[in-house]
């Protein structure tokens, strides 16, 4: 395929604005799949993705499109929509020359629409704004057009589509060919292929998704990873259209998959450049800004003999999720587990759910924590990503916590409740922009830890679900932080300790002990629950002792039933963690997140 006829593009959108459906329609329209084969949302291959309606892993599809006499190759690179995955978005953007910015015709521009747009502009991509879902009764394409004009697009650039009915798809494909520049790399130059994703396959080893920027790669070539120096022989090359199809070579401008008997995903660094061993390029392509986990939590198997299984599960997930970090840790209360780092809360939830669902390991997740910085009296700095690492109060000179710039998009009628929420969350108001008379962006500076604690739920409930938000970490600021411990039956449960702002400690302590009292079932003895800062108890509740757990009658006909009942009770206990002499259900470890007064 000559380079002039190749277009590499991705689709970016706010969650639920119809990105995946639009991709399906493009696939169908270009004949890659026919209607009968079309499972809803072809590109989302993981069950979890389809259920949650979000795209987690990247996927690249090669499509062919006939325009007049010319045949074009369109490479559609799918991107995740959620803010947690902005790192992955930027990776896929680096493989493209253009992006479709999809906006829901009824919802209009949302927080992630803008966040993704800015990312795409940073990557110098050509943007085609697409107003999708114009078939909806509530669609108002005219209003959305005005919104797009407000952020700098011209009316002529905008395409209106309905991925559902297929309206506008032809026009969109024409526009892609017309405005998105073709790749320009020289295929004669030494090979430079950008690894923008990798996937582990149990038969072929690591499969890398690559975009050839310069040169050509063929089956049988000896390649070298420019960052690690490792060399491999190319066993296979393929494209996805959207069934996998073997090819002999890939040339500059093309996107495809490469596998080379690479045994471990750790041998492949996403962002690295592949070149040829005997004819190497001089320098690497610019990589990606290193991503850092922003949220940490401890993951522990409920059954302590599942520790090795959990390690294996994390290793397997890590194969396809470079952003996930983990290292073993020990908790007095929970035994052996892992401290895991995530890009954000959604990322954390997805990993937990996949471990439970795909690997069948029941987990206890400790409350998520952000990464704090502590300056000691001797001016040394300590990084605290786990409350248990918090130094003693006497040794601390100053504490710092990460702050974010948060943009909230909302109908203007909710400004009041939103400002109240942000105030509650220790926010500092920055400014407010009106997109039009009814829609507003509010900018706040907020501690990241406050976003981790139920910010999203409260945002949704105080705006009836109409607001969306996005954030960007801006750095550390001094903050008066203390470690709050929770004691069950007089003993500190390390897994329940949290770092909180001093002014909020009393309130949090009270809410948490109340919540725990509701969650912890009655036991054979009374269980006091306390929240304490150092030696100072700030809140206390008691789980009353069990008074009755017996079957009144048990005669000939009740015997089997009684046994079944006790077996059920026994099963229930398996889902609990024994901490000292107290049996604690899984959900107790998340109770610490709860901020609602009960």
């Amino acid at each position, binding site marked *: 395929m000559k380079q002039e006829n190749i277009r590499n593009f991705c689709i970016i959108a706010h969650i639920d604005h119809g990105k995946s459906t639009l991709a399906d329609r493009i696939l169908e329209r270009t004949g890659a799949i026919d209607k009968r084969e079309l499972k809803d949302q072809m590109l989302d291959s993981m069950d979890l993705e389809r259920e949650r309606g979000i795209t987690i892993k990247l996927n690249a599809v090669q499509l062919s499109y006939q325009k007049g006499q010319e045949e074009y190759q369109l490479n559609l690179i799918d991107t995740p929509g959620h803010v947690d995955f902005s790192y992955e978005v930027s990776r896929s953007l680096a493989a493209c020359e253009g992006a479709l910015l999809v906006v829901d015709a009824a919802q209009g521009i949302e927080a992630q629409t803008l966040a993704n747009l800015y990312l795409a502009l940073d990557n110098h991509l050509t943007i085609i704004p697409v107003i999708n879902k114009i078939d909806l009764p509530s669609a108002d394409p005219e209003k959305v057009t005005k919104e797009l004009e407000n952020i700098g697009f011209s009316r002529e650039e905008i395409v209106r589509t309905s991925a559902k009915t297929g309206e506008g798809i032809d026009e969109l494909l024409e526009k892609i060919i017309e405005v998105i520049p073709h790749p320009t790399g020289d295929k004669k130059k030494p090979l430079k292929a950008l690894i923008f994703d990798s996937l582990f396959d149990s038969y072929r080893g690591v499969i890398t998704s690559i975009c050839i920027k310069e040169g050509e790669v063929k089956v049988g070539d000896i390649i070298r990873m420019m960052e690690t120096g490792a060399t491999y022989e190319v066993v296979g090359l393929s494209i996805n259209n959207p069934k996998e199809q073997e090819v002999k070579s890939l040339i500059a401008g093309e996107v495809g998959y490469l596998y080379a008997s690479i045994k471990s995903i750790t041998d492949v660094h996403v962002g690295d450049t592949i070149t040829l061993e005997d004819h190497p390029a001089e320098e690497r392509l610019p990589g990606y800004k290193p991503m850092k986990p922003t949220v940490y939590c401890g993951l522990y198997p409920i059954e302590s003999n599942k520790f090795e299984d959990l390690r294996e599960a994390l290793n397997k997930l890590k194969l396809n999720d470079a952003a996930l970090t983990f290292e073993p840790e020990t908790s007095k209360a929970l035994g052996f587990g892992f401290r895991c780092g995530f890009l954000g809360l959604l990322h954390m939830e997805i990993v937990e759910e996949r471990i439970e669902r795909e690997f069948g390991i029941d987990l206890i997740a400790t409350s998520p924590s952000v990464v704090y910085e502590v300056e000691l009296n001797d001016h040394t700095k300590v990084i605290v990503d786990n409350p248990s690492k918090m130094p003693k109060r006497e040794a601390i000179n100053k504490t710092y916590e990460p702050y974010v710039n948060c943009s909230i998009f909302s109908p203007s009628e909710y400004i009041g409740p939103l400002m109240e929420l942000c105030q509650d969350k220790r926010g500092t108001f920055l400014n407010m922009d009106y997109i039009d008379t009814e829609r507003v962006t509010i900018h706040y500076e907020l501690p990241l830890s406050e976003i981790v604690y139920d910010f999203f739920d409260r945002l949704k409930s105080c705006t009836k679900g109409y607001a969306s938000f996005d954030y960007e970490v801006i750095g550390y600021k001094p903050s008066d932080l203390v470690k709050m411990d929770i004691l069950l039956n007089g003993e500190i449960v390390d897994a329940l300790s949290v770092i909180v702002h001093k002014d909020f400690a009393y309130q949090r302590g009270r809410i948490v002990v109340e919540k725990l009292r509701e969650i912890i079932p009655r036991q054979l003895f009374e269980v006091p629950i306390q929240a304490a800062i150092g030696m100072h108890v700030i809140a206390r509740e008691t789980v009353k002792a069990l*008074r009755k757990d017996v079957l009144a009658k048990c005669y*000939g006909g009740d015997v089997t039933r009684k046994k079944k*009942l006790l077996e059920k009770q026994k099963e229930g206990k398996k889902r609990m963690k024994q901490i000292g002499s107290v049996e604690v259900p899984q959900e107790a470890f998340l109770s610490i997140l709860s901020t609602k007064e009960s």
Partner: protein
Amino acid sequence: MIKHCYIHIPFCKTICSYCDFCKQFYDSQKVKEYLKNLREEIERDYQGEEMDTIYIGGGTPTCLSLEELKELMDILSLIHKSHNTEITIEGNVETISKEKLVLFKQYGINRISLGIESINENHLRFLERNHTKEQIQKTIQMIRKEGFHNLNLDLIYAIPGETIEEVQEDLDFLLSLQPEHISTYSLMIEDHTKLKIQGVKPIAEETDEEMYSLITSYLKEKGYIHYEISNFSKKGYESKHNIGYWKNEEYYGFGCGASSYKDSIRKTNTRSLTNYPKGNLLEREEVTESDKIEYEILLNLRLLEGISLSDFEEKYQMPLKDLYNYQQLVEQGLLIEEENHLRVPEEKIYVSNEIIVKLLQSKKEI
């Protein structure tokens, strides 16, 4: 060797709001048919062993007519018994007559169990029971006069709205009747009962337990032995039949909805009167050796005396302590091991499920 036999009579003149037993309204045609089928089942399955105990339960066996009861007694004679076989019949105050008692006596019935449940008018109405103090007293006089010396009375407590004082009143009345045996049941709101359908909620567990404490201490004070979670008796009047269940012994179960345990199989007949003649089962469980041990433990621990460790070892060829690591529970005071028995302390018997589960969980890996 199987030594116990249960016979179910699923008919009642009125249906109580809390009852989840197999029962239906009395209908003479159905009773006639039923007795015919019951006879067939016994003729088919009973293998001629001599029974130590026979228990005719319901429903309300005494609600059958004199003629029908004669037929039932005739069926009863199919079963071998000795001169000291304990033979119990259940009934209620409203349906017992002198003639019926004479018949029972004639056929060797020597124990009568009456559902008194309460004497408080409000609570009786709630339970949909229909008798008065005077009726109870008169019936019991009649029972005594006809020469029955082993009488059980049932009491229900923890009825929504009930007070401790009302439980005390019920107990005092019960004691004035001088029964040899008393069973007291905390009201359970079972599925498919009227109470459940009406959405009745149980009373607070604190109150329930307080009532239970009152009952156990008061009855003990009045000379009754507390021998099982819900059962009290004068010395020597423990229910032999029920102790058979709690000692995990085998038993026949004849009749609609009746359960049996024989040759390592626990089964329950269908509750449907139409399907009963076909021999349909509601449930069938093959009991493995390890199940047997679990049953042994959970049933034995209902008895205040607990598990006899020597009997256990003889029965299963293995000491209990080799199978379960219960030492820690003993140290925590949740179990007591003394005089060759392992038992739940009386003050913890009301939370015994929790303790039994912990014991079962302590099973050693073998």
